[in-house]
């Protein structure tokens, strides 16, 4: 295959088409890997999406795929597909930092379930992607190792916390990528970067080997250029895992088939609370147009209400900070990661290691989380938040008796400028206003491009009932066959 043909395959073809080409022998996995590595070399100095480019590992993995296929083996469903991995997935023998100085130099002695499944399916990891420190952030500016820039406008943020994962896919630096979504960390950057991202049902994808931020809210999931690509990854990633006691063992859906199924007869709910004041009018117009498109494709649009929506962000910040303060307690300089140079006592070791290791956002959340968990405060804060969380989940359950899927904006605005919100954490938290409620309820939600404003992508959010991923893929697949927003590429 010519270099130009490979470039087309890298930038235009689906994950499935790439794997088919590798399995069919029309292209070598090694050539795909080299092609993306070349692009990483050319463009990532600007974007900053990779924290670690594992050229040697990628080449070795690609060669292994090629050798297997040359030996007549069938090759996996993702044979030779080059992926970027958010640096929150532990990868055996490959440095994993979660974007934090406290884990600088940490070489995991084990592999996450998701990356192991993808590798077994033939996928090739190109390296580890930048992210907000411990997935805490909505702009990727909280990475200890520098920001990521939005490929559509490098003065703007890619969103966060999976900013590297979104930027790398949007910039054509990998075929697809892995992220995690705790309050919107897949959907919001997918929207800001004009790609498709899925936060699956809580428990649908194993968390084993995913560095914890807020355990009851952490959802690993895929990014792709299209719903089809996301579906192809999901079919490999999803499924019960004996190593994760909260993983769901129900059979994995046929997501790729769902993408082709059509949405005729589906009832699409529009929650009034998600179309209230405060949204960029261009975003609102694009999302409404997207919903009209769904209606044109045969969906029935119905109004619904999610009355506890105003409490979602405060509830989210109570739950996630409490859990984060707990999950970050293990970084103490004893077993792994950063340790202060000199500590005369144990107390000094802890205080200095953690002061030096954590950036401002984790520190803020550790203090807030400890504040709300203290005895005497628990009932008023964490306990209360978990009850409100139930009400938020009940809102969704009720809405799904009236519709099959919800359509909303993903974010109230398009990508903002680097530095624009860093001084006001509360303003940053409000960027998650439409994404936190599905995370709290654990229901699946997908972001997909539905337009542009001033050259910046706009994302529509689809929300389904628990294990309703197939429905999301039906809607997204039909929408993407009828529209071309997802095929637009930034020029780098």
């Amino acid at each position, binding site marked *: 295959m010519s270099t130009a043909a490979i470039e087309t395959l890298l930038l235009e073809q689906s994950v499935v088409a790439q794997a088919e080409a590798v399995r069919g022998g029309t292209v070598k996995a090694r050539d795909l890997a080299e092609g993306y590595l070349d692009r990483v070399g050319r463009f990532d100095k600007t974007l900053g999406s990779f924290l670690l480019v594992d050229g040697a590992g990628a080449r070795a993995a690609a060669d292994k795929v090629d050798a297997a296929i040359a030996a007549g083996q069938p090759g996996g469903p993702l044979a030779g597909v080059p992926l970027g991995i958010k640096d929150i997935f532990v990868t055996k023998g490959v440095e994993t930092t979660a974007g934090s100085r406290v884990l600088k130099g940490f070489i995991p002695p084990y592999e996450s379930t998701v990356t192991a499944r993808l590798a077994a399916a033939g996928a090739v990891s190109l390296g580890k992607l930048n992210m907000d420190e411990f997935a805490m952030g909505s702009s990727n500016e909280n990475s200890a190792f520098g920001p990521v820039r939005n490929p559509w406008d490098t003065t703007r943020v890619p969103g966060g916390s999976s900013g590297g994962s979104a930027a790398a896919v949007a910039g054509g630096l990998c075929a697809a990528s892995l992220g995690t979504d705790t309050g919107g960390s897949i959907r919001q950057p997918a929207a800001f970067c004009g790609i498709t991202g899925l936060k699956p049902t809580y428990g649908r994808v194993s968390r084993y080997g995913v560095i914890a931020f807020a355990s009851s809210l952490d959802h690993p999931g895929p990014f792709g250029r299209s719903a089809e690509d996301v579906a192809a990854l999901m079919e490999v990633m999803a499924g019960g895992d004996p190593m994760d006691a909260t993983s769901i063992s129900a059979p994995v859906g046929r997501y790729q088939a769902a993408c082709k199924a059509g949405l005729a007869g589906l009832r699409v709910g529009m929650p009034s609370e998600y179309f209230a004041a405060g949204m960029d009018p261009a975003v609102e117009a694009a999302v409404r147009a997207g919903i009209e498109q769904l209606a044109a494709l045969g969906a029935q649009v119905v109004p619904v209400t999610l009355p506890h929506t105003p409490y979602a962000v405060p*509830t989210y910040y109570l739950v996630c900070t409490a859990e984060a303060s707990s999950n970050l307690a293990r970084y103490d300089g004893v077993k792994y990661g950063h340790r202060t140079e000199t500590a005369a006592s144990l107390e000094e070791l802890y205080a200095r290691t953690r002061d030096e290791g954590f950036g401002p956002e984790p520190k803020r959340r550790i203090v807030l989380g400890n504040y709300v968990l203290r005895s005497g405060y628990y009932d008023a804060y964490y306990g209360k938040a978990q009850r409100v969380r139930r*009400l938020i989940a009940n809102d969704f359950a009720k809405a799904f008796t009236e519709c099959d899927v919800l359509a909303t904006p993903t974010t109230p605005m398009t990508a903002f400028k680097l530095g624009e919100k860093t001084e006001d*954490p*509360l303003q940053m938290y409000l960027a998650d206003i439409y994404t936190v409620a599905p995370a709290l309820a654990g229901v699946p939600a997908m972001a997909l491009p539905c337009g542009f404003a001033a050259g910046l992508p706009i994302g529509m959010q689809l929300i389904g009932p628990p294990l309703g991923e197939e429905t999301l893929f039906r809607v997204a697949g039909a929408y993407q066959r009828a529209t071309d927003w997802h095929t637009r590429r930034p020029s780098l």
Partner: protein
Amino acid sequence: MSRIDPKEVRQIAVLARLGLSEAEVTKLTHELDGILGYIAAVQGVNTTGVEPLTHAVGFACPLRPDEVQPSFDNDDALANAPRRHERFFEVPRIVPVSGSSDGGGS
């Protein structure tokens, strides 16, 4: 009225073993005051008779058979240790404190 003062932030920092500079304490106090004011909204919600949602999955705790799986060999266990002594992790001398499990479990 402020919801949190620097003294409280310092106390929590001790609880969280987080060495904070005075500048950090001042900044955090201000930021947390704003955030706490915002999240206090949940306290107005009527949750009488509402069960907390602690887990987004509805099933009971799965159980694992008591079968031995491979352990780390020693180097894997200690490979990331910032400081080790032979087969041990090393820390500054421990003076037992209350609340610890030293010698008596917890």
